[in-house]
């Protein structure tokens, strides 16, 4: 166990270091991004004023690195350049909530629904439901997600006017009760969540279906059947539990990417989450904000993997013995 923790620590340190180096390898700097926004108004005099106001990056590269690492630990993530004078930690924290809402909900929904449909399909492979549902979902999942989201904005949002097309709530309105606000937010989240679920359902279904079909062919299942247990008891009591393992592995991986994974959704739906924030940081070469966003993603991926490692010990008894060495 101690070895594992050390691995996580090294991976985290490596990722954070890359996170420090990569933005600095991008051409240009925050000052230049600011200058560029001025376009025709830019004269040598204005450039001088802006450089004097924004200053050069504080200290040499090693000092910057040290400040960055200690800042990450103490929670002082610096001040955003593009959203000056807002704290990076505040920005990231606010955006994270929205991202977790849509990406998290979408992940749970598509995992539960997809896995359940997978069980249903595996019961009679090649017949009934299994004949058309998996191909259909794979077909839909095959579209570029960007396109799927745009079409739903344009048709369901714009042409039919059933769903809002931007933001996480109706910003123009005033809400007197929490109930109104919650419903309004749910309505705004419906289309982003819906498109992610539709696009990712097929993957979950196939993983579960294939694992379960394999499991149903094993001798212990045959034995359970011959002992006279009902199909339901066999599938949910024995086979499905074992077949779930690959899906859980995938879930753990997906969990980590929830934080970063809704990037396209947020851009298309103008949803104020982590993805949109990251895009803005990249466009404006906002180093502190960029580092904050990537650090959050790093922590999320590492954290969920750690969680998964721990969870496995409970779900799969075989891994317990492996961990005994420490």
């Amino acid at each position: 166990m101690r070895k594992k923790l050390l691995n996580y620590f090294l991976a985290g340190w490596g990722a954070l270091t890359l996170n420090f180096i990569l933005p600095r390898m991008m051409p240009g700097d925050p000052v230049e991004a600011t200058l560029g926004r001025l376009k025709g108004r830019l004269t040598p005099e204005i450039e001088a004023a802006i450089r004097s106001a924004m200053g050069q990056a504080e200290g040499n590269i090693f000092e910057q690195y040290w400040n960055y690492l200690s800042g990450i630990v103490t929670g002082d993530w610096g001040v955003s350049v593009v959203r000056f004078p807002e704290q990076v930690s505040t920005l990231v924290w606010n955006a994270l909530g929205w991202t977790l809402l849509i990406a998290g909900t979408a992940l749970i929904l598509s995992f539960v629904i997809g896995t359940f449909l997978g069980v249903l399909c595996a019961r009679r492979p090649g017949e009934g439901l299994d004949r058309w549902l998996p191909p259909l979902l794979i077909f839909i999942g095959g579209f570029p997600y960007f396109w799927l989201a745009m079409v739903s904005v344009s048709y369901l949002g714009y042409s039919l006017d059933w769903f809002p097309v931007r933001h996480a709530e109706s910003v123009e309105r005033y809400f007197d009760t929490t109930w109104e606000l919650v419903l309004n937010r749910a309505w705004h989240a419906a289309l982003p969540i819906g498109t992610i679920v539709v696009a990712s359902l097929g993957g979950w279904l196939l993983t579960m279906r294939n694992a379960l079909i394999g499991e149903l062919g094993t001798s212990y299942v045959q034995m359970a059947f011959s002992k006279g247990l009902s199909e339901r008891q066999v599938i949910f009591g024995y086979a499905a539990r074992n077949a779930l393992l690959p899906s859980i592995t995938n879930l753990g991986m997906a969990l980590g990417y929830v934080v970063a994974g809704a990037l396209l959704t947020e851009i298309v739906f103008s949803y104020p989450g982590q993805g949109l924030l990251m895009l803005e940081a990249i466009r404006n070469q906002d180093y502190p904000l960029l580092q904050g966003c990537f650090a959050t993603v790093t922590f999320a991926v590492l954290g969920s993997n750690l969680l998964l490692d721990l969870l496995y010990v409970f779900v799969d008894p075989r891994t317990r013995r492996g961990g005994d060495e420490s």
Partner: protein
Amino acid sequence: MLGCHDLGRAPENALVVSVEQQSSWVRRFNPLSPMATPRWPSKGGIYETLMTFNSAKESWVGVLATGFSWDESGTVLRLVLRKQVKWSDGSLFSADDVLFTFELMRTHPGLDTGGVWKHLESVSMTDAGLEFQFKAVHAPLFDGIVQTPIVPKHIWTKVEDPVRYADESPVGTGPFTQVLRFDPMIYELGANPHYWEPGIPKVKRLRFPAYSSNDQATLALVRGEVDWAGNFVPAIDTTYVRKDPDHRRYWFARTGTMVFLYLNQLVDLFKDVDVRRAISCSIDRERLVDIAMFGYTRSAFQSPYSDGFAKWEKSPDQKITGCESLVQKSRDALKNAKPLEILVVSGWSDWVRAAQLVARDLAALGLDVKVRTLEFGTWFGRVQNGDFDMSIGWSAEGSTPYQLMRGLMDPKLALAAGEKSVQNWHRYGDEEAGRLLEILARTVDEKKSLEIVHQLEDRFYATLPSIPLFPNPSWAVFNESNYTGFPDPKTPYAGGSPNALPEAALVLKRLAPVESQP
């Protein structure tokens, strides 16, 4: 469940403006700091300037100052201040506030974005207003001085670091000063109760929802959710106007900056003026404007002026003549040229299309030209460092062509390879033009200035340092269902674009709600 997103109380009537594309707002109204753009309309709408330039009429409009005069030497500028102006907290505005603002810029060079203290000796109060004493005659300084937003002394003396100051609750002399609401995705401003012009503003509330992209902003416009917008709308007649032709209109005045094809002087081929001419000749401008710009602008053949500089123009723009012999003359040079690239910012779709068309036209000359799209940061870095063959880019703004001409031909700005230059990216220096620019800077007399500008224009025609393509339109889209009084070519009391501050504040002051509104 349908219509659920309409839960909650309907908002009060407000003028909805779509101007910056941001995914969320930061509460920041400091009009002087160049650290980041302050929220609209800080410069002009919240904090007023001494005067405002009307780009449609090319004339100055008095705001906090009612008039100006130069002394004979041209080193002293006198401004008469408006009387009975109050700050939005009720205290009286005076020359002291102006003095304080300029003093602030002197002690904090980071605030001096107009570079006024490079040429200014001192500022002092007079009976009628203020006197600006220059170190030497430098007429272009006028723009910088009169368009400085003036901040209140009694508030800003307490500000520790005015460069980093966010100014969340501004106190200004402008028509809209009250922050009624500020959320990450929307903010609202209310009218200044102490505004100096009686009965103005007639609009009582401004609202700014955050639209994160051009698509989102266009969608909101088409749905009729926006009253005034400053963004590009594709095929505007069919997508926008046709839905309600009585109220929806647009005015894309050709007063933005001229868009140029810049030919880097570090490339030997482009040092020959005949080659530059031949290149200009071969570009099919009509097709360029039609396809790349949706026909929203006009072609520019030889003149470096957009319509914003019409009164400085000596001769109207004309097609280039004698093209065939020019092309013939430089045929050998062109045939033996190495492959070239046109750099353009990826995602700026109109300019990308323009670059592709230009590349095709140049291929007909025998040149091997490729279009290269780059991220903004990369593009800007390479262009400023002179690391390019050709590039499509903007040019300098101003109330006179001084900055424009300086950026096109000033030898002082034509730096060596590798040195970074924010203007004159193509590094062209013409000694004669440099001499004229120096004289122009020292001339305050308008008639004499005009003569020199005409000579500069002749120099531009003679040397063609870069190739004019088309003037960038000044995007302005109106929906007059709820508010009327927007400017148009017949009543050009100001340019129509909300992007141009402080000018857009003139429009805010004229708008009025439609009478029949419930």
